[in-house]
């Protein structure tokens, strides 16, 4: 079950997170290597999203250590992680700025590429125009180029997911955390999403962590799968061996089904 | 002795602030929204009591009850007209609409009574009680007694009645409350109505203590009730009580030496508290709003 990753870019050891008396995350080791896709699965309430929130700096963990590029680091805020460490994420329940257009939502992801003086010059030749071109390219990449000027929350559910992914890509990350990107999608949309995740991985050389309940998505994209249950890692390995792991079956289906 | 005297005065005015603060806090606690019409509702309710007494010659107690009912209604109307339709929009919107409602309410009162100061019939009567050498005004005693009774009744209402339970549930999680079959819209209306009524009781006691009623009375009381609520931890009822009392005592003990900046005390206290404990004195208990 122990798998060692050569030169992990992001390595968390023994992270735990509790809210009052509730232990959302007990003690989990987690690492992401250069250019890989990690699947993170587990029953509801097993701590997947908490782990993601801890990794992306939205929650402050109550214990554990973190190493970035092999160097010990303290837990940084989500702003610093985004700006300095190239970490981007999407949210489980889509979070878009409700009254902004798709373009502006994606532009928010580019915040850090602007200098203060860009606020005073938005005409031709400014950074704004260059960013505009990048937005067009990213929207093309995720396949919603035609929706550029629509209000983001007016879009269909699947397209809103893509806007979120586009916004995350706009920060030019090296590690992308996707929190249930296929939730609420039909099988056809999910297949397109799988395709998109693979393309992000291959064409943009980004490491991806994906939380998903849709096993098809996880098994076809991830090269490594980790299973959480009740805030602990119960299985870890390549997709095939994990899906056959008796503990995993137990966590998902209960003890009775273990030997079936 | 001098100090004790001021302490008693401070507790009296503080209990008024506490009532206003609780009316304010209950709305904030349930919805995370500031009700900017609160000051105008309490002013209008006090004026209704005044009108019932002077124009209809009703007994003062009946007139006051009329004023409190007016507060209930105004709170409910503000919620119904200005908050309900925009409950799902950005938080700023329902706050601004209550501001607009406050302007309307104030203008209506102004049309009838102008912006001058009118004498308010004191229902406590004048005179003093002499307690161990302390001169305690009858109005102060009445204020304290009424405030304490109101607060106890309100706490009991929240704790033991079905509506009170619904209010607490909505404050915890509106979506879950709706799924559990709690009539959320009606509960929110109740919250605004209760806030308005508590405010009017505070306003009546204030008018009774100063024996005047005037158009602008809502604003300073609102400001201090708001400050008291935040000092205690906004959304927290015990906190609002403690905040109100602290504010009242500070005003009457430190106030005289502050001269014309007396009204600024509330504010400096507020800044000091916020810098040390941004969540207020009892703020740790504030429910996380989602």
């Amino acid at each position, binding site marked *: 079950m122990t798998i060692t990753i050569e030169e992990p870019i992001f390595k968390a050891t023994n992270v735990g997170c509790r809210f009052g008396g509730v232990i959302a995350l007990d003690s989990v080791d987690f690492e992401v290597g250069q250019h890989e896709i990690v699947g993170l699965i587990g029953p509801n309430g097993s701590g997947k999203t908490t782990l993601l929130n801890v990794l992306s700096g939205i929650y*402050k963990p109550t214990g554990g250590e973190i190493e970035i590029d092999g160097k010990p680091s303290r837990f940084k*805020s989500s702003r610093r992680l985004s700006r300095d460490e190239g970490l981007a994420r999407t949210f489980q329940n889509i979070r878009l700025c409700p009254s902004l257009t798709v373009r502006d939502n994606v532009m928010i992801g580019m915040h850090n590429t602007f200098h203060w003086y860009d606020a*005073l010059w938005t005409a031709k030749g400014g950074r704004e125009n260059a960013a505009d071109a990048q937005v067009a390219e990213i929207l093309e990449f995720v396949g919603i180029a035609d929706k550029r000027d*629509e209000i983001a929350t007016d879009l269909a559910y699947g397209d809103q997911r893509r806007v979120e992914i586009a916004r995350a890509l706009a920060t030019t990350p090296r590690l992308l955390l996707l929190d249930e990107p296929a939730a609420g999608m039909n099988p056809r949309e999910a297949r397109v999403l799988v395709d998109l995740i693979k393309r992000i991985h291959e064409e943009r050389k980004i490491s991806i962590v994906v939380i998903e309940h849709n096993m098809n998505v996880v098994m076809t994209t991830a090269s490594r799968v980790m299973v959480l249950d009740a805030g602990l890692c119960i299985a870890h390995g390549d997709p095939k061996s994990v899906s056959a792991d008796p503990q995993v079956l137990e966590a998902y289906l209960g003890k009775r089904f273990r030997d079936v | 002795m001098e100090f004790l005297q001021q302490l008693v005065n401070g507790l009296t005015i503080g209990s008024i602030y506490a009532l206003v603060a609780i009316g304010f806090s209950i709305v904030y606690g349930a919805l995370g929204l500031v009700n900017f019409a609160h000051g105008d509702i309490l002013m209008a309710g006090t004026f209704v009591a005044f009108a019932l007494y002077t124009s209809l010659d009703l007994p003062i107690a009946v007139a006051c009850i009329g004023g409190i009912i007016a507060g209930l209604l105004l709170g409910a109307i503000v919620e119904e007209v200005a908050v309900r339709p925009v409950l799902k929009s*950005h938080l700023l919107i329902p*706050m601004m609409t209550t501001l607009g409602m406050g302007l309307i309410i104030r203008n209506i009162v102004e049309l009838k009574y102008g912006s001058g100061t009118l004498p308010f019939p004191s229902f406590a009567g004048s005179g003093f009680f002499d307690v161990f050498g302390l001169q305690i005004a009858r109005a102060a005693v009445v204020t304290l007694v009424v405030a304490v009774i109101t607060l106890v009744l309100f706490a009991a209402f929240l704790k033991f009645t079905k509506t009170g339970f619904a209010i607490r549930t909505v404050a915890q999680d509106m979506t879950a409350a709706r799924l559990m079959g709690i009539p959320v819209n009606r509960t929110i209306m109740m919250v605004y109505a209760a806030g308005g009524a508590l405010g009017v009781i505070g306003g009546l006691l204030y008018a009774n203590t100063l024996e005047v009623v005037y158009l602008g009375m809502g604003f300073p009381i609102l400001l201090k009730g708001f400050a008291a609520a935040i000092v205690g931890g906004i959304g927290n009822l015990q906190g609002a009580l403690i905040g109100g009392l602290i504010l009242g005592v500070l005003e009457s003990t430190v106030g005289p030496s502050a001269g014309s900046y007396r009204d600024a005390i509330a504010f400096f206290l507020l*800044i000091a508290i916020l810098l040390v404990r941004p969540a207020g004195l009892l703020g740790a208990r504030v429910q996380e*709003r989602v």
Partner: protein
Amino acid sequence: MLSFIPNSVQRLVLLALVVLAFILPNLVQPYTIRVAATILVFTVFATGLNLILGFTGLLSFGHAALFGTGAYISARLMLDTGLPLVLVMLIATVGAGVFGLLIGLTSWRVGGDYLALITLGVGQIFYLFLNNSNDLTGGATGLPGIPAGNFFGWDLSSIQNVYLFVLIVAIVVTLLARVIGRSYFGRSLLAIREDEVIARAHGINVPLTKVISFGVGSAIAGLAGVLQVLLLGFVGPATFNVDQSILVVEIVLIGGMATTAGPLLGSALVIGSTEYLRALQDYRSMIFGALIVLVLLWKPGGLVQILGIGEKSTAAYKSPFSLFKRSVPPVPTESEARS
């Protein structure tokens, strides 16, 4: 309403209006010029608040204090020193901006709702201060007899010239606000307004950005204060009480939050109707209160959205607030999660 008019025609109309504004002094009575100048002063004032309230979504109910800071600083400087007007304007603007930064700093630790109270309190204390420190502010009587300004040899003693000067400043400020509002900075302000968690997760420094927006918005209000002094030749505390703060909030809300033209339209409606519809004087706050409620319930983009003019290139400015969604999913904010 007017959105069927093609963009090019709208631009022509806008150009014609600007030209008209410049030749206005030759066409109408001094009283009308004075009203027009007042509208423009409040346009600048509201543009400052719009940055704070409309874009960043921070509640500021003490903006008259910043307006007053600019006015009193400039009045004092013009009475006591012979500094050129440009410097006076610069000092007053910077002074109000620094004061605003200090107020905005309190937002570093506390949430936006508390800022409403803090600004209310600041407004109140500022008003007390104006009335009580007689040496500096002239107390309740204010500072009368402020000499006319002189902008690089351009004498601003006649109302016509003051109007033109105010017009130019208002245009410059409006253009500046438009550029800032559509730049990455304006976008990050909107992102903060909509969802702070998102803003933070995409590298926006939320507390600092809030403070800066408060500072810039305050500086613009201070500049409006200078214009007010130039226009009236007098400052008194009555112009800077809480009613004035509420008035400018009304202007921003009615005109349209987070829009370029909103402050101008709102100011024209609110100030214009106050000046010209004296018969409605008694019903003023009722009408504006009802207008606020109506606008926010119906078209939160204010007059700009109702008229459907301009602001076409980015749909975001067409509907500044989505009526459909409050974006607060159950993720505690950073500070809450850490406490």
